[in-house]
């Protein structure tokens, strides 16, 4: 048995050993050689980068610059030049020149063919590269090719198309991207990220979509108009969307109006505080906070706080969190409105109010007043007492720890007494 076993296995083992050693050796040597070649290429590219970034080159004529670059890129592989055409770190004129050179080698017809719908992974990445190079050549067919690419089922192709369209940056490109919000398989937020980087005003394209019967178009139009100014009645056109039947549209309209006309949004936002959709209620309270922050009118700010306070008792935690943030943003001037919630029958409202009062600095301010003998008003002391009671031991402990920064004599005893008094009152 021993002989048979060895006779069968030994040659196999020897062959296996030789094969594995050879494989390891070949792969290892290839890794090192590939890396050394890459580093050498990078060194050359760095020299080119440095040379083409010389500010004196800009003063040369186009023909002289072009000749200089051609000289630099002489003997560089076509693939490298192809890649340089899409390298954002190079000056625009170098990228364009590289694209032109790549086109000269590969030819526009081939490049256009590469940019058409693909089959297979290799063709896909060639298509993506072709789209980037065509950005510089700008053939008349580029928009049509990008429209098709944006609608492609493959997310990588669609994403590349969205990037190139944004870099083209003209109105036609914007139109394709905006249409792609609805038709592309790419998540709309990814397309919106490109649309918002356009430097040309897009309100002319987006505004008609506010009345579009497709809810998602209304949503994106309202969202993407956020950084626009209220010109030609844009805010007035957005106002009806606050009452749209589609909840995301209502939210988008509120948020855009909040940044476009912060003072004018208060009335409609107050109306939406009872919206059935929690995220609309959150958007409404945030819009109200924006309005409150901007208004110089203290009475108006207090009124806004009074309308936001009931949301401290909302059934959704996201809305309660938004309400707390909003009230803190309105500043310490609204403490009375917040303190009124300490008497609410709802537990969330009471401890939410205590937390807001803590974050407004009202508790620390009153505590410091008592400890320093400045005698805050009875009302302030009562609010402190009730807030500490609602906030629980942790709130008192936090206040005591905060006071360690500026030591207040007997603060622990004071806090304990106040909390207990709060419990009794």
């Amino acid at each position: 048995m021993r002989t048979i076993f060895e006779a069968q296995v030994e040659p196999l083992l020897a062959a296996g050993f030789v094969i594995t050693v050879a494989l390891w050796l070949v792969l290892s040597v290839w890794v090192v050689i590939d890396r050394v070649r890459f580093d050498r290429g990078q060194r050359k590219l760095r020299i080119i980068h440095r040379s083409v970034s010389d500010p004196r080159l800009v003063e040369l004529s186009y023909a002289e610059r072009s000749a200089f670059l051609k000289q630099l890129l002489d003997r560089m592989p076509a693939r490298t030049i192809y890649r340089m055409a899409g390298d954002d770190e190079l000056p625009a004129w170098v990228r364009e020149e590289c694209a032109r050179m790549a086109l000269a080698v590969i030819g526009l017809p081939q490049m256009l063919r590469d940019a058409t719908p693909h089959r297979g992974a290799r063709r896909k990445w060639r298509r993506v590269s072709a789209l980037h190079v065509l950005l510089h050549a700008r053939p008349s067919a580029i928009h049509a090719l990008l429209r098709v690419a944006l609608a492609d089922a493959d997310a990588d192709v669609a994403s590349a198309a969205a990037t190139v369209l944004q870099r083209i940056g003209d109105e036609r490109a914007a139109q394709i991207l905006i249409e792609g919000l609805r038709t592309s398989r790419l998540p709309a937020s990814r397309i919106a990220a490109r649309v918002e980087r356009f430097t040309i005003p897009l309100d002319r394209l987006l505004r008609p979509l506010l009345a579009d019967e497709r809810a998602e178009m209304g949503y994106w139009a309202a969202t993407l108009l956020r950084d626009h100014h209220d010109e030609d009645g844009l805010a007035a056109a957005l106002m009806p969307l606050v009452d749209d039947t589609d909840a995301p549209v209502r939210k988008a309209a509120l948020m855009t109006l909040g940044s476009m006309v912060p003072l004018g949004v208060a009335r409609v936002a107050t109306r939406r505080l009872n919206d059935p959709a929690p995220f609309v209620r959150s958007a409404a309270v945030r819009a109200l906070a924006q309005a409150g922050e901007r208004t110089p009118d203290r009475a108006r700010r207090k009124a806004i706080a009074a309308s936001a306070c009931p949301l401290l008792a909302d059934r959704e935690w996201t809305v309660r969190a938004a309400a707390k943030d909003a009230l803190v943003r309105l500043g310490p001037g609204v403490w009375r409105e917040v303190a009124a919630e300490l008497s609410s029958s709802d537990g969330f409202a009471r401890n939410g109010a205590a937390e807001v009062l803590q974050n407004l600095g009202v508790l620390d301010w009153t505590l410091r007043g008592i400890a320093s003998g400045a005698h805050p008003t009875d009302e302030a002391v009562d609010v402190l007492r009730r807030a500490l009671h609602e906030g629980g031991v942790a709130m008192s402990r936090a206040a005591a720890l905060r006071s360690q920064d500026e030591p207040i004599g007997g603060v622990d005893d004071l806090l304990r007494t106040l909390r207990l008094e709060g419990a009794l009152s």
Partner: protein
Amino acid sequence: MIPASPGVLTFLHWSIVITFVYSGVLACYAAMMGILAVIEAGFRRNQDHAEDYESVLESAHSIPVSIIAPSYNEELMAVPVLKSLLGQAYPTTEVIAVDDGSTDGTLAAMIKEFDLEPRQVFYRASLATKPVLMVYRSRTDPRLTVVSKENGGKADALNCGINFARYRYLCCVDGDTMFTPDAVLKAMTMISRDPARIVGAASFFGISLTPETIGEPEYDGPTTNDHLLGDFQLLDMMRAFVDYRAAWSKLECMMCVSGGYGMWRRDVVIEVGGFSPNFTCEDIEMTFRVHEHMLRTKRPYRIISLPNLIAQTEGPQKIPQLVSQRARWQRVTMETIWEYRRMFLRPTYRTVGMLGVPYYTLFECFAPLFQVASVVTLALAFVYGVLGWQSYLAFLGMMAFGTALPTTLAVSLHDRGYRDFRVRDLIRMLLLGPLDLFLYRPILMWAGVVGVWEFMRGDKRWNKFERNARPRAAAPVGA
């Protein structure tokens, strides 16, 4: 050579046959993984080059992320780690650091560095945890919340952080892992391509003996450690992420989103009940649970692994520490496989049941037993003269270079994609490959045996290893 009875000879022959078959099946699996890893790496490389990260970075529509960083007795690392998290280049993030009842100066260091002030915060307790002792907010960076709680283990600390998290995606990290500024951006860019389906994501993180160097101004990309044990661990991680997890990801059965860096969709984590404190570690079990839940409820989902090197975590510098850590990993793998044994070869669980779980069962759970049996069998075969010394050496050589191949492939794929290690580091890594079998595997094998023994005993300890000595010992902040 000792004469052996026919019974012993027969036993040895069959043992050798089993050893060869096991090694052969493992080699086939490794070859399949290698091919898939090459395809996946090429795909990710192209995707990475074509990706427009700038638009994600500047967009108001980027999905916000809550980063949760639990720490326990991380006095030395807590501050640098939080700085690296707060330094993430991403539009909207919040960082929730959970101090899990540290007994050293971890909390004091954080309070001092980030000017923390105590606050009472009423949060939504979606997951049950040990009591919160105090919540702190930073006066210098409003994105930072520090939660101090009673000690309850990493899973409990993560659940506590989730209760405070406000955003849809959670980035769960380790308190001793340092991150590159684009760690969140790289993962979220991929996730934002398909947020409806991607519920979890992992990414490659390296092993360093001093990971805090990543935050230093003179940091110029990753390097090897100039320390054999550290470098073997780095290669181990590279192999795991660049070869295997990439391949598993392609097959849609990526079975472990590591605790060092894992992105999870909050709603799914809440739905499955949060991280479980009933296991030795929380990461692999959570991944198995999410797979099981999503496949059982027949919902479309993906858990992906990305090849980008986005962080460095501290690896043990001494063998006993490494044995202790790897024994824990072995233990949790066995605990998880045992818990989810119902998925084994069940077509309902698709590639997870048909490939992922069987692989983990055969080549992770039983690996230490097979490895020990193989070593004993081959030694006996040599002693009894069943295997001649030439065959014995040929087999050892084949195993050494065979196990080096996945390492070499991982180094190659990583270098093709990122070109971040220096050439001399590459050469060092490549040369270490064939030595792995003799210098590193025996440690892992022993750790595996210890892990199996601990599993049988029902041991659930974390066995945190002591922090490595620093060449330039930084004085603990706040000390």
